[in-house]
């Protein structure tokens, strides 16, 4: 049996726009297997949209190569366009057409026979919850509905690879969850999906593998679980206590640092999101260790011995945000 080429293959890709003095994409290499959901994660300006641009034929590479289903993007743009679909960040729906026509004309551009495109349009509109609005004008559509319609349009010509550029950027939480469900369902049917996002939880929720991009380069590329292991000390134990006296904090910190297996202890400032409680005498500590769960017992005991009252105690899993901060020293947004 011949081995199938990867759904997406990008090799040493460089893009420098005319009149720019840095590369927007600066030597990017990755590949995405058929049936994967792959995420490009990074802040605005990291080069994610340019990378998608090259793969969807709207950006010409300066050097390097990119291929989809074994077809080179520069050599066979027609073949590429037949195999891909794009859901952009901002609505680019054809407002001169009615909702159903947007789907049927899209399919017509791609050579889907009439009967097939009519059936598929009706099925997709129902599936995406737009069935009762098929003769509307797009101008009346909310952001979430426009997004769903763009997803339906993308599926009309049964592409092999779907590109989603910041798919839930401007959506309300409900539409977001709906779209996430749809993305998972499509992937379960065999569609390869590449999505860009600067939303950590989105990447974590959806993507099998994630490439973290910054300044035109891919810093790391792995599963979410593996990426989180990059942070030294693995996970952490977070402990919140009421101190018996205001000066007991220093002693408490000393005791925690002395616990076996602890590599580092941070006292979180009251203003931090993880310690919103500004009550007097309440302190929050983060204990880093190879095996944080093992610290639950010793840390509780240390608090009791110091005369403090335990308010909260939990093992904290590192987030992709933490990974990004660890790799770049900057927050994502």
């Amino acid at each position: 049996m011949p081995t199938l080429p990867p759904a997406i293959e990008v090799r040493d890709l460089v893009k420098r726009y005319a009149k720019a003095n840095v590369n927007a994409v600066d030597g990017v290499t990755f590949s995405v297997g058929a049936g994967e959901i792959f995420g490009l994660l990074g802040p605005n300006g990291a080069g994610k949209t340019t990378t998608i641009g090259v793969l969807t034929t709207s950006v010409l590479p300066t050097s390097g190569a990119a291929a989809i289903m074994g077809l080179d993007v520069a050599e066979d743009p027609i073949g590429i366009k037949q195999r891909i679909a794009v859901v952009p960040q901002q609505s680019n729906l054809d407002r001169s057409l009615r909702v159903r026509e947007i789907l049927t004309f899209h399919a017509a551009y791609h050579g889907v026979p009439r009967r097939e495109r009519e059936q598929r349009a009706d099925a997709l509109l129902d599936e995406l919850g737009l069935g009762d609005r098929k003769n509307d004008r797009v101008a009346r559509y909310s952001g979430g509905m426009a997004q769903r319609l763009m997803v339906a349009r993308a599926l009309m010509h049964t592409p092999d690879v779907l590109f989603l550029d910041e798919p839930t950027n401007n959506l309300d939480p409900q539409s977001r969850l709906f779209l996430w469900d749809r993305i998972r369902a499509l992937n379960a049917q065999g569609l390869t999906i590449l999505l860009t996002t600067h939303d950590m939880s989105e990447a974590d929720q959806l993507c099998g593998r994630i490439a973290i991009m910054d300044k035109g380069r891919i810093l790391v590329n792995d599963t979410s679980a593996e990426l989180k292991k990059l942070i030294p000390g693995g996970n952490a134990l977070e402990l919140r206590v009421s101190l018996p006296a205001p000066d007991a904090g220093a002693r408490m910190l000393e005791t925690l640092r002395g616990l076996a297996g602890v590599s580092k202890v941070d006292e979180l400032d009251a203003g931090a999101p993880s310690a919103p409680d500004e009550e007097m005498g309440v302190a929050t500590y983060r204990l880093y260790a190879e095996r944080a769960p093992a610290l639950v017992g010793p840390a509780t005991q240390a608090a009791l011995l110091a005369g403090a009252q335990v308010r909260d105690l939990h093992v904290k899993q590192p987030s992709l945000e933490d990974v990004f901060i660890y790799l770049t020293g900057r927050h994502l947004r």
Partner: protein
Amino acid sequence: MTSARPTNRLWLAANAFGATLRRDLAVTRRELPQFLVQALIQPMFFLLIFCKILPSIGLASGNFAALMLPGIVGLTELMAAIQGITLPLVLDLGFAREIDDRLLAPMPVWLVAAEKVLFGALRGMVAGAVIFPAAWWVLGSHYAVRGDRIGVLIGMIVLAGFAGAGIGLVIGTVVKPEQISLMFALILTPLLFTGCTYYPWSALSSIRWFQVVTLFNPLTYAAEGLRYAMVPPMHGHTMATLPMPWVLAALAVTLVLCFGFGARTFRSRVVS
């Protein structure tokens, strides 16, 4: 994933081209009344004032209508062709990006531009053709079009439509949305008045510099070619127009240059 896909790139591109044209025609058909009003209202007033009112009060001669009508047809056709492309294209390339879906259709980018030109040309031809019944209705007994050069007339209407569409492609890809009003003032107004619409080219022989200026306007050739095809002989004399080989060559060159340049700028606007 499912059914077998066509693999012939040529078929794919031709089909996408056809479907894109069908889309444009479907949208226009829906807006047909607006399109016709837009195309007809200005020429109707031109005909009424210049060919009916002015001769009636003695400010223009009676056969002025016969000279003017071809100019009006040429002007209407060029403007309809230009506007059919320019405005949607300026908005699309500027911010609407509604054209993206067609750019992702399996056809080369230049073919998307070519479809725009074909569609613009068809719009121009329809706008030019509907002037005839309108003029017949407005002018009554002053309506005079020779019937023995109908082949040339059809050819001229087709060619003028394409030339206008070519100009529209260039303007549409060069002008930015914030420059639209400037475009009307700086491009369309000179085009309107130096195009031999309201006067035959040969009559300018006493104002040589202006006669030369008009030669840089494609509308001059459209109007003169249409005069050749339409103006009936008066007092046994056939009207002198620009020689037809010049007319045909100039309009063909306009189309080729405009399409070549316009398709390039179009590409540079949509592929970075």
